[in-house]
């Protein structure tokens, strides 16, 4: 839609002949009155006050369009130029692995090598990184073992450059969004300047990370949504559809990179509900029209993103077809898809027999292998016997030997098969302890009984006996490897072997709790399958395991991801960042280097920018409160609505949920919220400057406005000059030591540069 930002506000025109655009363009002080040409523009006039953004009505904008296109374009070019140059400057420095590049770079390599891995984030971001690396000639051989490893001759610039390019779009998007929302170049320029010269935004864009990609999609989604809102008087036109579909695509992109994308989906969802509510109240629309609107949005904002999101996963699973480090997190059926996994085209004895060595996997999604090791339960946690846990990785301690009730020695001849109803004893191969349970409370799930390893060399007691039960089977059915769901019922207490999915504390090596549940309901948590099966006395038969269908894989990988995410608990000794630290820029993150001799990069926002943002939030709330009380009391402010509600909501949605999260949090989680906050600052400060004429008379108010803008610009530029080494690298002594270049800049004791 038209860039109408430089038109005098026609509803205030009668009061003041004042321009709202700071550009030197003075040619169109023409006054015009809004002409109600058609039905649409009348509606515009009615609704302008009640919506999140102010619209001057299309009739005014068409008139003004010609004359303002050029300055706004020039400004946009300027923003783009500055943005790209600050982000791409020194992109290859430092030439070693920084911070989380060790994860995401490695995962990019996995895509190039087509190796299967497990990560808590959805795959799109890493896929794009891998693609960028592939296109720029990176061959996927660099191991990315730990931060600080030198890249040597690897082509890492492509991946970094790709992230930086996406990161460079952020100020441009911010500019466009604020322009759409406020119709004021000044506001847009302030927002863009804040982001361009923020050291934090620069640093986080310059490395191989998911954040620039995520923020790109978030901002793109918000921009398309705002553009779409502007199209509301041209329902179902081509541009209406374009922005609507673009919103949907970007939502899918945001969610495809990180689950944080969910917040922007909520933002768009709320906006859409509000929009539909407005349409519903519009009595000129028939119910059929409203249904059309609803269906169009449901298609573009729900169906389309879901399809795209699923497609991303489909590509992920198709590309990664080789066995890799993430196998153990998934079910046996899933693993059989992966080339190189021992279950791929597996060949093993078909039926479980006495004397076999097996691994036993829990059927709950992301349930581990039944596991034990040479460690006892600590004092005070049930009986002090050997721990039995569930473990997600493949390991020798996952091996168990199936024995008869009594005998220890394997007989000669063909071994007997284990059948439904048989009593077995499971001996842990490495430690020769028997799987055992008794009437003690389990360590975490207090309603269940404890499971331990007991006895030695297979000699134990009556509590070591378990009855095998094939789910859905009858007495005498054999146990099929991989395909049968098996339950183990404890003979003495009648409980069933169960994996609760809760993570044990440190003493249990953060493995998963295994208990014996007295509640006999059949759930995947109490069902197990036999995965590996070794018995030299039986013939191996090639097994084609039932291949899981795509939806099962999708569901399984999501549950595994959510488990992984909630499992990222803060460790005792690790530094833990708190959400309230973030807006005040309390503490940054070391991206690279600790000591004086190293090349150091420190992720920290430009304090001037961040503190201005913080102050503006307060200012915004005060202004809104004052303005709405005044309106409620019937004063006419003669001004447009402030219109930052959408941005405020965006900030809240991207910030407040972190307070309730139990997982470990980092400073960089605040950056999406910071984008919204900066845009809001642009809007707020612009209105503040313009409100000067409530107090001052025309020439002075104009001067005040200019002075304020210049002061703001100068302080941002100067602070960027001061703090730019944070992003572009520092060497030499640390800031609190004499002789450092950053000597006087350690304004807060908590900064560590």
């Amino acid at each position, binding site marked *: 839609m038209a860039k109408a930002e430089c038109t005098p506000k026609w509803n205030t025109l009668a009061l003041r002949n004042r321009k709202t655009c700071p550009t030197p363009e003075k040619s169109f002080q023409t006054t015009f009155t809004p002409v109600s040409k058609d039905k649409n523009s009348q509606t515009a006039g009615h609704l302008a006050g009640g919506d999140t953004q102010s619209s001057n009505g299309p009739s005014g904008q068409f008139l003004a369009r010609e004359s303002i296109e050029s300055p706004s374009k020039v400004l946009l070019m300027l923003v783009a130029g500055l943005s790209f140059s600050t982000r791409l400057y020194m992109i290859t420095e430092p030439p070693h692995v920084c911070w989380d590049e060790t994860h995401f770079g490695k995962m990019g390599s996995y895509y190039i090598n087509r190796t299967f891995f497990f990560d808590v984030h959805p795959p799109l971001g890493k896929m794009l990184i891998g693609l960028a690396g592939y296109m720029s000639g990176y061959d996927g051989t660099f191991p990315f073992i730990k931060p600080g490893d030198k890249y040597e001759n690897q082509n890492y610039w492509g991946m970094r450059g790709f992230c930086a390019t996406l990161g460079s779009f952020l100020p441009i998007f911010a500019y466009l969004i604020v322009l759409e929302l406020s119709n004021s170049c000044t506001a847009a320029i302030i927002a863009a300047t804040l982001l361009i010269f923020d050291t934090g935004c620069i640093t986080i864009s310059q490395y191989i990370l998911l954040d620039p990609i995520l923020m790109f999609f978030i901002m793109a989604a918000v921009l398309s949504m705002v553009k779409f809102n502007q199209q509301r008087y041209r329902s179902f036109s081509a541009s209406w559809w374009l922005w609507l579909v673009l919103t949907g695509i970007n939502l899918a992109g945001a969610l495809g990179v990180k689950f944080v994308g969910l917040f922007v989906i909520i933002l768009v969802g709320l906006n859409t509900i509000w929009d539909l*509510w407005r349409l*519903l*109240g519009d*009595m000129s629309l028939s*119910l059929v029209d409203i249904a059309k609107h609803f269906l169009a949005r449901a298609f573009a904002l729900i169906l389309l993103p879901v399809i795209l999101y699923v497609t991303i996963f489909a590509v992920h699973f198709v590309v990664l077809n080789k066995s890799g480090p993430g196998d153990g997190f998934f079910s046996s059926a899933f693993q059989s898809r992966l080339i190189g996994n021992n279950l791929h085209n597996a060949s093993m004895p078909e039926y479980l027999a006495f004397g076999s060595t097996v691994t036993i996997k829990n059927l709950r999604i992301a349930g581990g292998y039944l596991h034990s090791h040479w460690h006892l339960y600590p004092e005070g946690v049930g009986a002090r016997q050997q721990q039995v846990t569930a473990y997600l990785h493949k390991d020798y301690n996952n091996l168990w030997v199936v024995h008869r009730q009594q005998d220890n020695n394997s007989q000669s001849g063909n071994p007997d098969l284990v059948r439904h109803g048989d009593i077995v004893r499971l001996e842990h191969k490495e430690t020769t302890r028997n799987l055992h349970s008794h009437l003690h*409370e389990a360590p*975490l*799930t*207090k*309603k269940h009984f404890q499971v331990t390893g007991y006895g030695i060399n297979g000699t134990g007691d009556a509590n070591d006996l378990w009855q095998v039960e094939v789910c859905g089977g009858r007495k005498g059915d054999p146990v099929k490897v991989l395909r049968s769901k098996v339950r183990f019922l404890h003979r003495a207490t009648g409980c069933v072997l169960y994996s609760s999915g809760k993570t044990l504390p440190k003493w249990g090596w953060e493995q998963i709790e295994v208990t014996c549940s007295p*509640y006999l309901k059949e759930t995947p948590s109490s069902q197990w399958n036999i995965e590996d099966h070794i018995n030299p006395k039986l013939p191996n038969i090639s097994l084609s395991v039932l291949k899981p269908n795509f939806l099962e894989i999708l569901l399984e990988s999501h549950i595994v991801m959510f488990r992984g995410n909630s499992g990222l608990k803060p460790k005792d*000794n690790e530094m833990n960042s708190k959400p309230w630290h973030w807006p005040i820029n309390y503490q940054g993150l070391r991206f690279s280097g*600790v000591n004086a001799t190293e090349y150091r990069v420190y992720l920290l926002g430009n304090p001037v920018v961040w503190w201005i943002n913080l102050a503006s939030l307060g200012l915004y709330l005060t202004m809104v409160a004052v303005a709405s*009380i005044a309106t*409620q*009391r*019937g004063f006419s402010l003669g001004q447009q609505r402030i219109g930052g509600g959408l941005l405020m909501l965006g900030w809240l949605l991207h910030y407040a949920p972190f307070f*309730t999260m*139990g997982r470990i949090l980092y400073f960089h989680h605040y950056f999406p919220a910071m984008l919204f906050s900066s845009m809001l600052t642009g809007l707020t400060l612009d209105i503040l400057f313009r409100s000067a004429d409530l107090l001052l008379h025309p020439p002075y108010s104009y001067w005040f406005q200019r002075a304020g803008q210049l002061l703001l610009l100068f302080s941002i530029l100067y602070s960027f000059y001061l703090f730019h080494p944070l992003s572009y690298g520092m060497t030499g002594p640390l800031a609190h030591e004499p002789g450092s270049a950053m000597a006087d800049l350690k304004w*807060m*004791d*908590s900064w*560590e540069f």
Partner: protein
Amino acid sequence: ICVSEMLQLPLVVTAQVDLLLVLVSLLAFWTRLSHLNYPNAVVFDEVYYGQFVSLYMKRVFFIDDSGPPLGHMILASGAYLGGFDGNFVWNRIGAEYPSTVNVWSLRLLPALCGALCVPLVYLLTLELKFSHLSALGAAVLLLLENSLIVQSRFMLLESVLIFFVLLAFFSYLRFHNAPSSWLILSGVSCGAAVGVKYMGLFSYLLLLVVASLHTWKLIGDKTISHMNVCVQSVHRVLCLVVVPVLLYVFWFYVHLSFLNRSGPHDQLMSSAFQASLQGGLSRITRGQPLEVAYGSQVTLRSSVSQPIPCWLHSHKVNYPIRYDNGRGSSHQQQVTCYPFKDVNNWWIIKDPGRQQLVVDTPPRPVRHGDVIQLVHGMTSRFLNSHDVAAPMSPHTQEVSGYIDFNVSMPAQNLWRVDISNREAESEVWKTILSEVRLIHVNTSAVLKLSGVSLPDWGFRQLEVVADKLFKAHSSSLEWTVEEHRYGTSQEQKEREAELHSPTHIDVDRKISFWAKFVELQWKMLTVKQEESEHKYSSSPLEWITMETNIAYWLHSSTNAQIHLIGNPVSWGVANLSLLAYQLLAVVYLLRRRRGLKDVPDGVWDQFVCLGCVCVGGWLVNFVPFLLMDKTLFLYHYLPALCYLYLLSPALLEHAHTHLLSSVTHQRALCVGALAVLLSIFLTYRTFCPLTYGSPELSAHQLQGLKWRDTWDILYRRR
């Protein structure tokens, strides 16, 4: 003249008594208060609250992170009325009370509050502008709810909380309907509700939201003058914000001024706080000199009490030459942090420029910025640090008691005193009050408790290091002088004897109420108790369908038992009305948006107000639990449930009057409602044995009461 006129008037008392209200109140008292002292044993969480009641009786200081002190005070006042002296060991559920304990009075106040909830609900429905019949319905639902009865009859706090919450809403709505002085009562109840349990905060916030919506309407009313609007708004802010906050602080004021003896939780608090309590630390430190001087003998306590409080310590054992992982050490004397009082915790402050270890007359105080040496009292080693990696935290420097092995490792034993809570630049180092950092002069590293415990060679004491890269406001860097005396003996032997003797001299110190309040509040919010699953804990989603119960008490020899089980029929009615309201609200809203007004505006306002209070109340008291990481129990759902009981009859009345037009339908609804009420009464009767713990049921009968597979009902094997 006036008097004579009055005398001519007939003396008339005109009283209107709502007989229904009186009746439900009486029934409420009967269901909640009868046989209150049965069972004569500790029931469930009485074991938890009881210990605090005992501490109150003995005026011993404690911290309870589960809630502010008003709840404990109410329970304690009940105990006080019954003459309880605090001499009872609350150690296990089911322990018999001795005859000296007046069980009835211990349980009286919660039961009274629980009983008063019933008439309050009646009145609250009336204030929501529904009929007396609806009010009766709500009161009966509450009256016959087994879980509320159980929760009221013991020394627990939920019924008190629910009482104050209902009172707050009732008095606010009464104020809203007819402006009067009821608002102040509403504020007081809010303060009390939050003071009983932090959960009261949810309802308080909801009340604030409702009040601000009403105020917003008031502001929009242009028939009222600006001045009047200002006055009204300020009045509301005063009553609903200022009063509760002041009250909340007041509860702590009473708590702190009442509990003035040292007790089991002392160690969690700072030295200054402890010194303000009678006994404990203050007994040791009473009479110590205030200003630390050269020659002072001191113990240095680490300000951080994680994992446990400890004192800077050294002993005649050296660091091993090589650690298990092959790294070398200086092999000098170990310096650790030791969690027990010990003679090896004593250090002497020495002026680097002079030899003597006694205090001059007059004493020369140590000030901020001074450089000192610290001499270990028993071994005379100097506190030293150097560029050797610390045993467990290799990125930091080792701290040792210096021994010269002649290996060109010179002594680096100068430390600068940095008082971090100083008010002036040349402040004197004060006992207990000053938080001090010791900065190593040669390397500018800071003496720090790393929080890691040493292996066997260090006797599992805590590691002390010097750290160059430190966070600014980490309390692991700060040390306070706890025990202190002026040294008088220059000779080592005499000094050892002196260190073994206790300290005396007289000075009095106090810290202000605000400092204590802030510290206590902060500790309550940050002290983390080990969260583990309880046998009867449950997750919030299980509450809606009442998947779990809680066994409160089981008779020591028979099958008589008490369970927290709700009335399943009422529970179902509550869930149904919640759903029905939401459905109806959505339909109404959509139709109104299209200009179809199903009900007149007055009725619509009433409907909205009902939703704000009841559905809103359910939401704010339920949804937050979904986000919590705590161990939760079924009784956390009871406040939310009460809101739903308020909702059900009102919604029924709404449907009756405004939705059903034909008389037959209305009659059918009435009959249905009566049938439901009857079945509620019958279920109440059925579950009575589990609610009151008598009569004893046979195993077979108990089996019959197990309406859900997931309920745990206990059978005694015979």
